[in-house]
């Protein structure tokens, strides 16, 4: 996936922290000297409802700041998938949570689909459902290698609330490991 620009769309329900995940991804790209733009959209609710974060990473300047054809689509809820999951680049990939029920895209589009237990890793392995966004980032980076682990881990440490870096890094690494295992299994 060596495109001129990489487009990411991260969808979930409000409160899952995917906007922060998008910010961290963009931050890591900038640390590596790339350009990045992050935008978001969400409903009026602070919790629940569908929310999405978008990130574009590019070696060159980025004019239009919104994602039109995501190379990477990550969805953690059925509602977000229904709302934001309709378009994906045919050469891209889709990451979803194993708990989702909707008919997923790859039967039709042949876009590779990775179903990962993001929410349950956060809840059971890390012990904090709130860390699902970091688990998701780990999965995403294992599958796309968009930025280096070192940059991403530094961005996590700088952006998460004070005192929670270790917990969030642990969640990130758990997501990374889960996706790497899935890749080996395939």
């Amino acid at each position, binding site marked *: 996936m060596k495109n001129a620009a990489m487009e990411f769309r991260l969808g979930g329900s409000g409160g899952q922290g995917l906007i922060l995940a998008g910010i961290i991804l963009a931050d890591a790209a900038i640390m590596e000297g*790339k350009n990045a733009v*992050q*935008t978001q959209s969400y409903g009026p609710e602070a919790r629940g409802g569908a929310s999405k974060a978008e990130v574009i990473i590019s070696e060159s300047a*980025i*004019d239009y700041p919104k994602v039109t054809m995501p190379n990477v689509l990550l969805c953690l809820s059925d509602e977000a998938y229904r709302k934001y999951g309709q378009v994906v680049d045919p050469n891209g990939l889709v990451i979803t949570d194993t708990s989702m029920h909707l008919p997923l895209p790859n039967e039709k589009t042949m876009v590779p689909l990775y179903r990962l237990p993001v929410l349950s890793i956060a809840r059971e392995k890390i012990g904090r459902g709130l860390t699902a966004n970091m688990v998701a980032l780990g999965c995403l980076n294992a599958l796309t290698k968009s930025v280096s682990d070192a940059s991403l881990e530094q961005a996590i440490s700088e952006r998460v609330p004070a005192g929670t870096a270790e917990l969030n890094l642990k969640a990130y690494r758990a997501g990374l490991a889960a996706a790497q295992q899935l890749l080996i299994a395939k």
Partner: protein
Amino acid sequence: MAVERSARLMQGNEACVEGAIAAGCRFYAGYPITPSTEIAELMAASLPCVGGRFIQMEDEIASMAAIIGASLTGTKSMTATSGPGFSLKQENIGYAALTEVPCVIVNVQRSGPSTGLPTSPAQGDVMQSRWGTHGDHPIIVLSPSSVSETYRLTFESFNLAEKYRNPVILLMDEVVGHMRERVDLHSLSMSVVDRVKPTNKREDYLPYDAAPDGVSPMANFGDGYRCHVTGLIHNKKGYPTSKAEEVDFLIRRLHNKIDHNLDDVLKYEEYMVDDADIIVLAFGSVARSAHNAVRRARQNGVKAGLFRPITIWPFPEAAVTALAQKAKHIIVPEMNLGQLRLEVERVAGSRCQVSGINSIIGELIAPDQILRRIMEV
């Protein structure tokens, strides 16, 4: 892990705050409203660290009044708002224009009218930013398209406000306000302009004594100079007057001080316009979509160009007239029903065709929509 951090990921609203503080802003009064709320939050956190003051007022009317009062004491002052809040500021914006009190008003535009579509992007306040307050009055309105430009234009807003003793409106939109992107900190170094202070003896000071297109020095309230500030039409002393020659002199001077300095006030950017048959004229976040569309039109061999007014008011009339003499068609995409197009038609309508692309659904106009129109005309 010591990485050179001359570049940072920054949000538009955050860049606005950083630019304001770097320009010398030390007082903020406001009433938070999405999508401008981050400006109030970050001002509340930042101003006390640089010896400034933040106050959350009871509403937008009071916030506007508070920044005028603070500025009269010599403190650079700002407020930020959005949508309905901008409507409430209007009366006191007129007061600041007539009394010549430097101040900066940030309006992160959201969809309207009224509460509208909270809090989707729009550009529906183009005309309100020009004519929202009653009576003939001068105003300067700047509109950024990126996060780093938000920093620079906020800084520039303070400089212009101080130089011309006039309110300056920074007309942002939700896309630019909430978007985060790379900002190269070393590109942001700018020089601060401060208002001119009186040098004559206190008893000789006249607060509104200036040439027909000039700006008079401004004493701080509390420094012992005699100042009278009123929303009534006033003479050189600041006292109310209804004498025809004094009234005429003041209102014309207020306009002349801006209109005779357009080279200093007007900013715009041109991209590929030199041989362009089709010009896309766009501002704010929509200019980014337009840039994308023009770039792709050129790849298809179509002679398109982009004109991006950065100063919206006064409108860069001479530059647009020059383009209209060469171009066949000007397309004006905007997230409203054609407010800036009215101005383009006034300036260019007799020289070339002018058409609009207008979206009011609370979404940024997509490049494809603009590209399609370029290919059609």
